[in-house]
């Protein structure tokens, strides 16, 4: 596909369950980002990969959140023991280059997580 693909589009989890969210970036894109977006708010940074290396995970809200990109393409964001405050849209974005300058982010349509 031409764009960033995220699955599932919607996920309902019971409190305490583990969830895994998948992101397929644009082929050849070096950088991959995960963001969390609450209703009516802008995206909040979670973590950043350059190829398979996780260079910044400063935005992960707790040690229940874990992300990986083992082969430098597909990425998975895992949330363990989900809590109600984890309910949000999780956006994945990729960019062609590194450096936060010349390459804009290309976003997927997100996974809407609802924890009941």
């Amino acid at each position, binding site marked *: 596909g031409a764009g960033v693909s995220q699955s599932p589009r919607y996920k309902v989890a019971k409190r305490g369950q583990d969830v895994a969210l998948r992101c397929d970036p644009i082929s050849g894109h070096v950088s991959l980002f995960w963001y969390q977006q609450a209703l009516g708010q802008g995206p909040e940074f979670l973590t950043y990969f350059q190829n398979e290396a996780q260079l910044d995970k400063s935005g992960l809200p707790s040690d229940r959140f874990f992300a990986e990109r083992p082969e430098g393409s597909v990425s998975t964001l895992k949330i363990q023991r989900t809590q109600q405050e984890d309910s949000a849209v999780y956006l994945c974005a990729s960019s062609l280059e590194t450096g936060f*300058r010349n390459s804009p982010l290309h976003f997927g349509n997100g996974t809407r997580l609802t924890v009941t």
Partner: protein
Amino acid sequence: EDQVTQSPEALRLQEGESSSLNCSYTVSGLRGLFWYRQDPGKGPEFLFTLYSAGEEKEKERLKATLTKKESFLHITAPKPEDSATYLCAASFNKFYFGSGTKLNVKP
């Protein structure tokens, strides 16, 4: 603390009524200022990148400008299809997003 603030939070315009959206930033060592459009249920869609004060970029009815402390997105003679949330992001060592301006253009 690096941050980005957008105003107004919401804006209602009549079709054809021009206006501007504001994005102020306090990111040190700015590398780029990015504007995105987000439709309901979709991810943000890239519009513009600005790099230095005085720079301007245009696309159809949209024009983005940049100063040392803020950026403006000017919308000229908007149409209902311009209704969306407009996000700006300032980049240094990461991309810092504002909360967006929700624009509603009435026919």
